[in-house]
């Protein structure tokens, strides 16, 4: 997933970015509302992690602006404000979840996964596609009872297909999903990862539409 992290505390933002990147997501980390605004105009993010008390304003104002613009991007608020009234304000402003600092990094990962599943229209963490069984919580793939090991990047690519089952995804869309701003991407990176996924999952799972992109077969 392509995730926007809006967090002004450098020590924390850095760790969150590392954690999420390790899980195969592409993270753009910004420290202010102004920078977040710029990023949101240029990229269609899959998820936003939003701190509330930011140097140039309240994160809730940014959230309200996002919702008023018609964007339905899932938003998880990360804040040190633990009062229920703040939580209600956040949820009323359009947040999908609310995580109070300090939190476990594993809990953050679980919340990200839960929110993205809800948005994909499938809150069930176990997905079955053809002969494949996919546990979205544990990041595991099974075929005929055997576990298939995927690297973080391969998992992120698979997740992109699972989120839009049967949808044709262009190479640019997949690059956006996998890489943050400033990442060095080889021209054939997506082809390499698709090829690796095919080898592990089975060649019949991913279909190539020449000149347009890739699609995950539902059966």
């Amino acid at each position: 997933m392509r995730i926007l992290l809006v967090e002004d505390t450098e020590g924390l933002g850095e760790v969150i970015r590392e954690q999420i990147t390790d899980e195969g997501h592409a993270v753009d980390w910004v420290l202010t509302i102004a920078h977040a605004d710029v990023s949101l105009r240029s990229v269609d993010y899959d998820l936003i992690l939003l701190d509330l008390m930011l140097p140039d304003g309240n994160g809730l104002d940014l959230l309200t602006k996002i919702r008023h613009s018609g964007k339905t991007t899932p938003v998880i608020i990360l804040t040190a404000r633990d009062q229920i009234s703040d939580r209600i304000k956040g949820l009323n402003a359009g947040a999908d979840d609310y995580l109070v600092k300090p939190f476990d990094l594993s809990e953050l990962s679980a919340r990200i996964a839960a929110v993205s599943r809800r948005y994909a229209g499938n809150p069930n963490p176990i997905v079955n596609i053809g002969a494949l069984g996919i546990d979205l919580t544990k990041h595991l793939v099974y075929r005929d009872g055997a576990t298939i090991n995927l690297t973080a990047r391969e998992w992120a690519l698979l997740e992109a297909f699972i989120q839009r089952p049967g949808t044709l995804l262009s190479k640019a869309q997949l690059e956006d999903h996998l890489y943050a701003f400033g990442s060095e991407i080889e021209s054939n990176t997506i082809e390499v990862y698709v090829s690796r996924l095919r080898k592990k999952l089975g060649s019949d799972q991913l279909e190539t539409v020449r000149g347009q992109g890739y699609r995950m077969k539902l059966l």
Partner: protein
Amino acid sequence: MKLLKGRVLKGRVQKSRASTSLQKKLSISLTLGMTFLWMLALLVAVFVSQIKLNDLFDSALAETAQRIMPLAVVEILNREDITQPQNIMSFAAHDEQLVYLVRDSLGKILLQSHNAEPTDFNQTLLEGFSSSTTHRFYGAWAVQNSLHIEVAELLIDRKEAIIELALSFLWPLLLLVPLCLLGTWILVRYSLRYIIAYRKAIESRGSGDLSPINVNGLPTEILATAESVNNLLERLRRALEAERSFTANSAHELRTPIAIALAQIQRLQQEVPTGKARERAINVESSLRKLSDLSEKLMQLAKAEGGGLLSTEQHDLISLLKLIVDDRKRSSVTCNATSGLVIDMTLPKSGVFMSTIDPDAFAILVQNLLDNAIKHGRKNQPVVVGFSEQGELSIVNAAEVVPEEPLKQLRRRFVRANTSVQGSGLGLAIADAIATGIGASMTFNSPASGRKEGFEVKVSFPLMIKPNDKVAK
């Protein structure tokens, strides 16, 4: 200590109220004052009446002597032997109120009324009014001072007349005194109705309620004081809000560095291989968690005891409860300590319970009770959360029965019934401080109601306070 102070203060208020009830004092003193004035008026009336009656009786006595004397003179002079005394017989049997003697200048009785007793009369022949211990007399001379008449009247008859007169005044008074007491009581109560409402509004509020008290209708004598009390409450509320804001900001400032340290140490654990360094990282993480929990609890305790636990707006406690339980369920998905947690919730059909309790205070209360139930409940057995139509929250967890003595101590800070489970020992003390502050009652039951084991906490929230009791000045 704070609770003790509150109880002592309440006791003082009750004692002072019992000894100086304005309503009682006014009713009794007004009735006594009125009764005293009536009695004084009655005595004056009786005294004046006595003087007037004596004048009238004396006048009647003199008039009787003046009327009888000519008849007596004719009667005596027409006798053959005027020296023979004669007793005047009555036409019909009757008691004489007035008796008389007609005597010559030497005091010899010439004529007397039939009931006259000569020994009762003056032995000296006097003219005009005179009195003995038993009679009142009027004497007069006639026929060149050769005949003397003396008419007598029993003084006791006069006294009886005065007593009857006084009693006729007194009987209505005896009836009027209780009526006056009742009337005064009603009048005073009616006049003091706003003061009584004011007193009740103060009595019914919890120690955390700092909203202004309704001063409408209060008499001018007390209005200034009541307004000063409201101003004081407002100043106190602002001071507590500032303190609360400081606590919230401090909590925020504390959480951020702890969050950084915790996240960094968790990343470090992922990066270092298994061994001593990783064990140390795990120990540091554990200490950070304890620090985080303790600072969190102390902040909550500061809020719970700092006042401002009631809001001027009403909130639906059931919606808040759903939100808190839902959040707890979601947190438990990834938290190893509570994985497999099931929270069963029973809510009333109406689905709404409005209250002026501050939502954050309610959340802290419920979160602490839930934490307690989850920590001390048996694993893989559900925590049961219920909320009744009458505003009673109950949280039950499966556990061994807690003996009576430790059960009584659980409200105290740093007291834990089960020391094998990690905890600060502050959760139930925080819940108790909030329950006390909002005027709710909190009870612990073990075994839980309708069970043979388990631990149950029940919190009865006060019913919605009527808006007219809480109108701003």
